[in-house]
């Protein structure tokens, strides 16, 4: 499955832009011409040919495809068309830590808070009243796209209250220095708003899923047994109900990662966050096919990998499933 997903996605990625019959080099030169760089007609033709040869766009499609596949395996996507000497890999490498730091933290935070909240909400013996007041607004927020929530948060917390910066990864006046504590704090402050918009918008999703799982679990016989054994409420809550109800949630976590990525493209765009989403956005607006291919490939690979990891750790969470006996 892992290989199939990656292969299909990569091929998609290769053929779709090429079926358009559009010439990225010509597009780029037109852009240059619009900026005032003029060339004579015969030079223009030679220029296109040279560039096409340089980027390997003049060869038969099959060869291009094979080259592309081998470059995908080697993680080498060539140079960006719009930012010419920069390699695609370099662009992605710079952006990746920002995205991973933001997305993984906020998704896991939302997962933990939402799952626990949903569990308590469904638990008959728990402090229900407080949660019944707090959680339902989050159910509604879950129906709202991340980036719209982001816009509202920018306006409330950054523009009106001036508590947090408007956007960006760090203040434009400072130089990145990862050993400096002040810089780290600044990065944290800048990531707070985008993270908050992702967390607020997805807590409800996790809480809803967990709640309905917990309600099902409470009808199970082993819950009755836990009660009959005289276990404490806390113990039967965590070891019997939550332990079982969290399994589908974990699967959902793997399946939701794609949506996190897609939501994050716009979150990064709105907050001007220097992550992969912004690289992709700039590539889209600049018709930079190689960068688009590289970014899409990396994202798909990351998701496929995450699903593989979930598959592998599943037996640890659920002892009933084991790969050795199967």
């Amino acid at each position: 499955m892992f290989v199939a997903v990656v292969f299909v996605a990569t091929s998609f990625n290769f053929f779709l832009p090429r079926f358009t019959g559009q010439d990225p080099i010509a597009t780029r030169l037109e852009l240059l011409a619009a900026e005032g760089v003029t060339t004579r007609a015969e030079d223009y033709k030679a220029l296109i040919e040279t560039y096409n040869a340089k980027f390997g766009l003049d060869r038969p499609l099959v060869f291009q495809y094979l080259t592309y596949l081998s470059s995908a395996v080697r993680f080498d996507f060539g140079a960006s068309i719009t930012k010419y000497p920069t390699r695609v890999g370099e662009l992605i490498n710079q952006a990746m830590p920002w995205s991973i730091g933001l997305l993984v933290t906020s998704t896991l935070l939302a997962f933990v808070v939402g799952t626990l909240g949903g569990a308590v909400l469904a638990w008959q013996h728990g402090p229900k009243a407080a949660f019944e007041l707090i959680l339902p607004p989050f159910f509604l927020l879950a129906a709202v796209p991340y980036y719209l929530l982001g816009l509202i948060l920018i306006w409330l917390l950054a523009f009106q209250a001036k508590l947090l910066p408007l956007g960006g990864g760090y203040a434009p006046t400072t130089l990145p220095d990862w050993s400096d504590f002040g810089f780290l704090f600044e990065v944290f402050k800048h990531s707070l708003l985008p993270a908050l918009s992702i967390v607020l918008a997805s807590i409800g999703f996790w809480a809803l899923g967990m709640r309905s799982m917990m309600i099902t679990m409470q009808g199970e016989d082993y819950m009755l047994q836990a009660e009959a054994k005289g276990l404490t409420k806390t113990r039967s809550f965590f070891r019997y109900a939550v332990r079982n109800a969290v399994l589908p949630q974990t699967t959902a976590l793997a399946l939701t990662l794609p949506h996190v990525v897609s939501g994050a493209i716009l979150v990064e765009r709105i907050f001007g966050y220097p992550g992969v989403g912004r690289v992709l956005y700039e590539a889209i607006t600049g018709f930079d096919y190689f960068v688009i291919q590289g970014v899409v490939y990396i994202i798909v690979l990351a998701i496929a990998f995450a699903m593989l990891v979930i598959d592998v750790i599943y037996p640890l969470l659920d002892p009933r499933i084991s790969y050795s006996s199967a």
Partner: protein
Amino acid sequence: MATTASTEPLAPASNVASDTLNRASGLWGYMKRNPSIIAGFVLLGIIVLFWAFGTLMTAPEDAKDLAFAPPNKRPSLQNPHPCYTSENPRELCFAYDNEERQHLLGTDRLGKDILASFSQGIPQTVMIGLIAGSLGTIVGTLLAFAAGYYGGILDAAIRFIVDTLQTIPGILILIIITIAWREVGGGEMTFIQLALIIAMLAWLGPTRVVRSQVLVMKQRSYVEMARLSGMNGPEVILKEMMPNLMPFIVANFVLAVSSAILASIGLEALGLGDFSSNTLGMMIYHNIWYGSLVNGWWWWWSPPIVVIVILFIGLFMLSRGMDEWANPRLRRRF
């Protein structure tokens, strides 16, 4: 809610003369026990009212990009009516009250009347959702029946394609397709075409969910009975399974519409939409592009957000309520 469900009778006594009345009141009786559906309809109704209000108060020309109209006018309650009518043509109108002309919700950076943009954009966005959602639901349901009912290689193939495509973030595929499509069309793309692009992936969800329902239903005794009595495949599907799955498919249709609108707004906000349209997503795009948040043009960025939020929450409540209606076993739980 669970307690009312058990005490109230499903429908009023059967001695009501008119059958339709009986059915309608039965429906109303059910709706009363399903507040999600009511909330959904009320929220969507608010949007319809807002659209109707905008259509009454503005002329379609107001939503056009007018280079000579004064941009960024604050909302005003004074003289909000369009000054031009059939007797009072547009050129004349703008000639004399360019500055005095007031707008209920103000104008945007391009000089468009914001209320007029909504009266155009809401139907356009809903249209995208309906086209992509219904195409996705129809194709998905057909594939689901083909896969679930007939099984075999067909099932394996459909399942493989769905599983693979669902792993890849939909928005990435849509981004690539949209760029490709726009390039073919010379940079132009109508919002109907955007809807068709979104429909290319909209069938994945319905296929998966309906297929699993078909698999369960295939084992039911009445389906087996129909097969034993000599009905062929399409007959069983159309006459026995389809009517029973209809509520479930309708509930999924609402969900498909909602996710199609979500996808369209996402693509448009990224700048991959129809620039000649006024869809809600294009409004968000223009807001981001002109930085209306930091410029303090609250009357421009807040209405589309409010409308989109109401729209999504309305669709969400509706689909939850429909789910409950389609799947009666859920009724006891919630």
